[in-house]
């Protein structure tokens, strides 16, 4: 196959057979209870140096509880899938948890600027859809996928993409390396104890991320009975065998919204932007994360039931979000 041009950036090594072998060895096909606390799940399944993908983001049905837990446990040297994300990248870099980012889109601020200036952050350039297509390739067990964007851009040159001559049409086509992250964090509306998970409403790449990743932590607003899953199987977004841990996490997307369940906490959302923007992540963590042993304690003591009820009441739209 003729390579016409190629990007120069490092990318997570591509190894579909290795991934299959990992699945064979480590992913249980038995129905096994997987309920863990956020603390246990992050301690067991997020390792220093991991490639991390989270679906959606800290402000929009993201696994915010686990982002905070990663900061609390001082994980280091993570490589982030920085697509469709506002403040998560800034928070994880500001907290010195991450050193590499594949860029689709993230909110840039002084917290990130400083990491670049100090030479402790590398950014590789893609775009949002290109990253979700890399995950798609990873979720299909393939080594790469052709894409009809990215070609000709400077992002292409600073990525792991290649331009090849398509052996079928003879035309140039961009291919991107499959992405099989070490760990995926996905917040869902409902899951059972085995990890059968339901996402209601739109998302970014929850199915692709779950299937493409070696270790998968699901945080769920509600834990439901497996009988309920069996009564409406078309609602299952992620099947149990892709999942390693299930965390019961009501308000796990706080301060973000979880569609149909609660709205975002606007004041806190703006505080997050401020923290990333002015390089104030340390102060943010000192207020919202480190004083508390668990997220629940933070929700109880710092947010309070009255505020949480209000956020629930603010989410007036329920059509499409309940079975």
């Amino acid at each position, binding site marked *: 196959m003729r390579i016409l041009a190629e990007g120069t950036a490092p990318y997570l090594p591509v190894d579909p057979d290795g991934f299959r072998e990992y699945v064979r060895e480590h992913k249980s096909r038995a129905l096994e209870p997987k309920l863990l606390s956020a603390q246990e799940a992050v301690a067991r399944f997020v390792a220093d140096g991991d490639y991390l993908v989270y679906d959606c983001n800290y402000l*929009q049905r993201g696994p915010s509880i686990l982002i905070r837990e990663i900061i609390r446990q001082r994980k280091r040297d993570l490589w982030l899938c920085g697509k*469709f994300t506002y403040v998560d990248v800034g928070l994880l870099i500001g907290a010195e948890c991450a050193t590499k980012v594949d860029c689709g*889109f993230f909110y840039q601020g002084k917290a990130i*600027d400083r990491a670049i200036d100090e030479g402790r952050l590398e950014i590789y350039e893609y*775009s949002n859809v*290109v990253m979700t297509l890399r995950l798609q390739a990873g979720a299909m067990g393939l080594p790469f996928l052709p894409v009809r964007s*990215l070609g000709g851009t400077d992002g292409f040159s600073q990525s792991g993409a290649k331009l090849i001559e398509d052996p079928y049409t003879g035309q140039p086509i961009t291919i991107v390396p499959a992405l099989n992250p070490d760990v995926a964090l996905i917040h869902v509306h409902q899951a059972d104890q085995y990890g059968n998970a339901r996402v209601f409403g739109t998302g970014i790449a929850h199915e*692709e991320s779950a299937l493409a990743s070696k270790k998968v932590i699901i945080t769920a607003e509600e834990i439901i009975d497996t009988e309920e899953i069996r009564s409406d199987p078309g609602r299952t977004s992620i099947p149990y065998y892709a999942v390693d841990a299930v965390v019961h996490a009501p308000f796990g997307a706080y301060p973000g919204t979880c569609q149909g369940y609660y709205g975002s906490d*606007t004041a806190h959302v703006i505080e997050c932007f401020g923290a990333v923007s002015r390089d104030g992540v340390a102060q943010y963590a000192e207020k919202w994360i480190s004083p508390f042993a668990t997220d629940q304690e933070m929700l109880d003591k710092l947010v309070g039931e009255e505020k949480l009820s209000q956020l629930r009441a603010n989410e007036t739209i329920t059509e499409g979000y309940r079975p």
Partner: protein
Amino acid sequence: MTMLEVEGTKASSFNEREFQITTVARMIEDGRSYWVTGGGTPIFAILLGQRRYAPNAQYITEDGVIAPEPMLPFEPIMTMVASRPSYRALAWGTMNTAGNHAQLGYMDYGILNGLQVDRYGNINSTLIGSGKEMRHFGGPGGADSIAANCWRIILMTDQEKRKFVERVDFISSAGFLDGTPNARERAGLPRGTGPWRVVTPWAMYDFDDERRMRLIAIAPYVTVEEVLAECEYPPQVAEQVETLAVPTEEELEVLRSQLDVQGQATGVRSGWVTLEGDKYVRQTGD
């Protein structure tokens, strides 16, 4: 000649960002599909266009919301993966839904923002400067796929010298690349696509037969010279530069009271324009 004139009461006072949004709203073609970036001015342009001129224009957002009837207004930042913007859609998908449908050719137009644009319509939203002076920004987000795969691209950006350049500091989203014939196809992008219009608060541009950006219309409160003074690299200039019609009170009513009620898009760094006698005048010193 006045361009994009509509029925209604001409507004006597509006800001430049509102002018830009109403201009794009009037360009919305009924019965066509649009992929719009979720934040900022593009979503307001399509929503205003639908409400005033093109009820059967449809749009999709990056999180795979197809043809919603959104509940307005949106909360700050909550323009995707949130219940209000995705309300009463015809279908809900994910990011690869949006990407694949555009890749298939279903998206007639893309409307997007950018930090910097060059003579061939290449868009930069990644970084400005080089070496020690380099400053990284957020990345292309969905714009790379919108710019590559929608049939026609409308870019909404600011009329500032540092933003209209000969060559962008970084091509985040493809325009006509180096401007040579079929440069996009040689880079693997779909045939027959590319930049179509660039709309700023002061002017509108198209692309000539050699794929170079060309000034075709200006706002009534600026001159061609003033526009060109805010281009680091001079664009081509059409033989006849037309004047864009001002917003109507009816448009501003929708924009201000239903769409951008908190001034999130229109309040940003935008000067005011008022009718003085028979002339629209920019309020300077802001």
